[in-house]
């Protein structure tokens, strides 16, 4: 796998039994890459290890005043230089490729898993946890997978160098060979404590960042009401705690680097002392002593890999564990017993008795928002069962077909429930409105019906390179740059484009001002002519346009009719819709009784003025 071939067309089916299993699966998935990296790494390390030979030969040649030998040493050094350059570069290329492919694979797996789980995901794990895997853990997982072959190369090179030294100069070589394992392992006992302190530091830093971003997120509140000093003081304390924790952690790393200076230094002293006596006794050459000394200093490079791999593993194991936790989640829906199909007909909920006749605009009024939410969820089919439900809840029927028994995709195609807080996904407006749809409703018509003209203006003003086409303007994450009412109308336009068999809208205009709301309601009604539409609302402007209004008390339908009929005959309806509370009901009775123009005329009037 090369970087240019990414992304994977299919990232595969991961082994999610445990963190280490997952790491192993990732490593095995790029075996060729690992072997390449191992080979180049070995070449690099061995070429570096060969340099002292050149240094020793050169010194020896100079001692013997031999120009020929000196030239030979020079050629050797240049040759080694080429090998080092090639080995180093290729090792880096292969190792980074391993890192990138592993990270990309995990990212792709996460994307597929979250898309598959949909609304079920955040009921199982916190949203932050999933995002944390993507932002923090993937890097650590990739690091370990990548470091593995580099470590193997270094370890193998060390063994080779030791063997080489022992063969080259048994007397000093043995000394080095004995010391190397001690050097490799000396700092390992300190690492757990160091990583623990690093973890504490990261945790505190995370807390400080959280406080800072929270303060900034609420900055308008602070600037409007006060309390800046209170929050600054709080942040300063957190920030200073991060600093202290970081210094505490640095103490440990400073100690580790000191040990990494001290131990090899002791080896070098021993080498010089012992080697000098050997030279004096005539048992070895001066050049050989320089070679071994130089080799010993260069060994520090491969030795560092022991420390790195230990750290990489201690960081990546919990990360892999967290990734596995997310990747092993599954949907718990009822299995579909029916074939994929999109039924047509009336939408009917047996539990409440709600009936939305095919092709009509039905409005639902419900005093209890929780009950309304539950009903809206159920209308889409495949709602997660309530924890306190006494028995199995009967499925909502569309044209007599139980939605819960349809495959999820079919149920969602047949009925689209736009919930109370629909999320606008970032991207261009064109991308936002490019949703799976019947194809019968053009984006422009949907935008016009949802009265989005001012939204398009706002988007065009805020964009850099829209070249005048509102469809090319960008919507920021969650549509944060727009007002609540503007977001709601865009989301409505998106649902209208989808044009499902049955469209269920939960409070689609709660944040829209009354002027615009009347026009939105009329637009929706016009566009959905002949299609089944259900809207949860308590706004008279919308209710008055509905073909049929249903009043829900708790989980039961208690009345149905037109807005006017219910307003006249049903006190409970009046109470909910005209926003009278019991204590002021009497006083405002006069207002309720005001009966005026036909709403259609009122809307026309407003449109004329606008």
């Amino acid at each position, binding site marked *: 796998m090369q970087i240019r071939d990414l992304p994977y067309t299919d990232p595969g089916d991961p082994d999610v039994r445990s963190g280490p299993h997952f790491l192993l699966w990732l490593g095995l998935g790029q075996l060729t890459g690992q072997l390449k990296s191992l080979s180049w790494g070995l070449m690099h390390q061995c070429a570096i290890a060969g340099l002292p030979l050149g240094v020793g030969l050169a010194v020896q040649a100079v001692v013997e005043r031999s120009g020929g030998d000196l030239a030979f040493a020079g050629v050797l050094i240049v040759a080694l230089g080429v090998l080092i*350059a090639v080995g180093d570069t290729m090792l*880096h290329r292969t190792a980074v490729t391993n890192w990138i492919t592993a990270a990309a694979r995990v990212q792709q797996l996460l994307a597929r898993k979250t898309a598959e789980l949909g609304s079920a995901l955040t009921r199982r794990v916190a949203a932050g946890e999933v995002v944390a895997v993507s932002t923090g853990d993937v890097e650590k997982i990739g690091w370990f997978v990548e470091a593995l072959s580099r470590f193997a190369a270094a370890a193998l090179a060390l063994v080779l160098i030791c063997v080489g030294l022992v063969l080259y100069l048994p007397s000093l070589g043995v000394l080095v060979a004995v010391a190397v394992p001690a050097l490799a392992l000396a700092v390992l006992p300190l690492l757990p404590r160091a990583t623990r302190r690093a973890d504490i530091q990261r945790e505190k830093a995370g807390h400080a960042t959280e406080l800072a971003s929270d303060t900034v997120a609420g900055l308008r509140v602070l600037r409007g009401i006060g309390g800046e000093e209170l929050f600054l003081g709080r942040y300063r304390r957190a920030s200073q705690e991060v600093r202290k924790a970081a210094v505490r952690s640095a103490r440990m790393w400073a100690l580790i680097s*000191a040990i990494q200076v001290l131990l090899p230094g002791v080896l070098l002293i021993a080498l010089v002392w012992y080697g000098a006596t050997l030279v004096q006794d005539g048992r070895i050459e001066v050049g050989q002593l320089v070679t071994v000394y130089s080799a010993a200093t260069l060994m520090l490079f491969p030795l560092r890999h022991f420390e790195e791999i230990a750290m990489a593993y201690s960081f990546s194991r919990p990360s892999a564990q967290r990734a596995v936790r997310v990747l092993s989640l599954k949907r718990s829906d009822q299995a579909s017993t029916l074939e994929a199909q999109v039924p047509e007909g009336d939408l009917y909920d047996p539990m409440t008795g709600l009936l939305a006749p095919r092709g009509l605009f039905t409005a639902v009024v419900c005093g209890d928002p929780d009950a309304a939410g539950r009903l809206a969820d159920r209308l889409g089919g495949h709602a997660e069962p309530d924890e306190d439900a006494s028995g199995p809840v009967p499925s909502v029927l569309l044209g007599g077909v139980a939605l819960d028994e349809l495959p999820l995709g079919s149920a969602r195609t047949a009925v689209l429930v736009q919930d109370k807080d629909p999320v606008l996904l970032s991207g261009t407006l064109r991308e936002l409105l490019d949703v799976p749809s019947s194809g019968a409703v053009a984006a422009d018509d949907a935008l016009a019906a949802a009265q989005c003209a001012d939204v398009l203006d706002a988007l065009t003003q805020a964009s850099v390179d829209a070249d005048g086409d509102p469809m090319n303007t960008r919507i920021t994450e969650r549509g944060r740059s727009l007002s609540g009412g503007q977001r709601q109308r865009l989301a409505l336009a998106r649902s209208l484009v989808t044009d499902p068999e049955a469209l269920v809208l939960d409070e689609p205009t709660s944040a829209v001002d009354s002027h615009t709301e009347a026009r939105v309601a009329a637009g929706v009604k016009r566009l959905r002519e002949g299609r089944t539409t259900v809207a949860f609302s308590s706004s008279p402007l919308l209710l008055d346009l509905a073909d049929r209004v249903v009043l829900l008390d708790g989980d039961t339908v208690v009345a149905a009719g037109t807005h006017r009929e219910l307003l006249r005959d049903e006190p409970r309806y009046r109470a909910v819709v005209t926003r009278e509370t019991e204590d002021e009901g009497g006083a405002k009775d006069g207002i309720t009784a005001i009966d005026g123009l036909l709403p259609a005329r009122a809307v026309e009037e407003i449109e004329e003025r606008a």
Partner: protein
Amino acid sequence: MIGLAPPEYDPAAPTSATTLPVGTPTTVRTYVRSLLRRHRRPFALLIGANAVAVIASITGPYLLGGLVEDLSNGVTDLHLERTAAVFALALVVQTVFTRTMRLRGAMLGEEMLADLREDFLVRSVGLPPGVLERAGTGDLLSRITTDIDRLANAMREAVPQLAIGVVWVGLLVGALTVTAPPLALAVLVALPVLLVGCRWYFRRAPSAYRSEAAGYAAVAAVLAETVDAGRTVESHRLGARRVAQSDRRVREWTAWERYTLFLRSVLFPVINATYVTILGAVLLLGGWFVIEGWLTVGQLTTGALLAQMMVDPIGLILRWYDELQVAQVSLARLVGVREIEPDAGDDRVGPDGREVRADEVRFGYRAGVDVLHEVSLDVAPGTRLALVGPSGAGKSTLGRLLAGIYAPRSGEVTLGGAELSRMTAERVRGHVALVNQEHHVFVGSLRDNLLLARTDADDAQLWASLAAVDADGWSRALDDGLDTEVGSGRLSLTPAQAQQIALARLVLADPHTLVLDEATSLLDPRAARHLERSLARVLDGRTVVAIAHRLHTAHDADVIAVVENGRITELGSHDELVTADGAYAALWRSWHG
């Protein structure tokens, strides 16, 4: 591999027109200088410890060089014990000072970093409210998270390590010059290659790394959005599109990874070549010099070992120079906040009375495009004024002008005869408060969330404020009372509870004039109704300007102003406007039909 062009799509390119400024190179330089000045002593200490450690580390090669010299001259009395003792002493010094250097480096880096992030927040909370309204907090948010993060690496590692690396190379070259002046020339041979290579690389690297980082962040951002929008994704059957979107981001990100890998594929051989050239040149030239008798064997050995030691600091400098360049961009973004004019308010300007007036006010967000045209309005103390009208008519803008958040382009908005725009934000908010849909609950205790409105309030006053907005029921039931940790990731409050907290803050802050901008419009209608009762108690006895979505709010107001196309087209009480039979009357009838 022959040359690779940078990918076409740049994830780091700005997509939004309304962002805060980025610091100019001069501002950044001035800031860095002041930062270094503030930390002069620790910096000097770091350099000192570093120099001692490096000098001690040079002792080994020196001693070995001397030994080689003696051995090759056949000297029999080597004083090995003495040599070993000096070596050991040097080693102890090197060990101790290496530790000191690492620790001092970290302490310095952490202190600078803490300074930087605290500075930034101090600046941020001092921003004029108008700037915040317009630019939003998103940009600021990304600066305090992403940019601080990137700087953390630079401050913690890059600055100290670079300082160490530079001193280290300097000392090694110095030592080489002292031991064997001709060998210092050998180092110069390698310099041209290194300079040309680095110039090529560092011209391309910083922006490439920025794009790479932005590309990687975009991968995570898509996933975060899919998670956040789980319900929407499922109901609109967007799963496959989200996966395709993620894959596209992965492709864009890895294209940049591939490009930076190419850049390093050029840089690495250059560094390696430099290193080998230095070593080879020292040995060969030096060897020739020795053979010619211009240099001793001992000098050559020391020189060769010193040259070999140079690989460490050179690697260090190249490794961190990169990071420093990337950090520079982040620093420019952080320092950019300093370039925003602070509040121009005059401390001496204060209101005399409570009357709010707008006099022939014109205002626009962009030059040449006015949102409000000659709006005049008079709000007597204690009046309730409702602003109604279609979206985009300028209601919210007018509200913000009356709350002193924006200054009019021409005309004036006064409170008690004094111009609002000439007062400081701190002065304005003692009198006028804007209440909007943003009911932010801060991470922290319930107490902190209330105290911000009046920092000297005692618990009894806090409880009273909660009771005043009907929030004492649920808040008394909390396990830790006022100490309960709330906010994201803690106990999460319902939107209605969050709104009550916002109202309780108003009770504590006690401004005499309130501008309400759709304060309850994002709430469930049922919860909104409950809140309106809490709100009504807060409003009691204050001047209120309400931007109304819902007509019943307007109905209850003393005066209603209909705003259309940036002008006030109707003004009067509910009854008057209904009688006048204009736009308001038509709307009212359909609403109550």
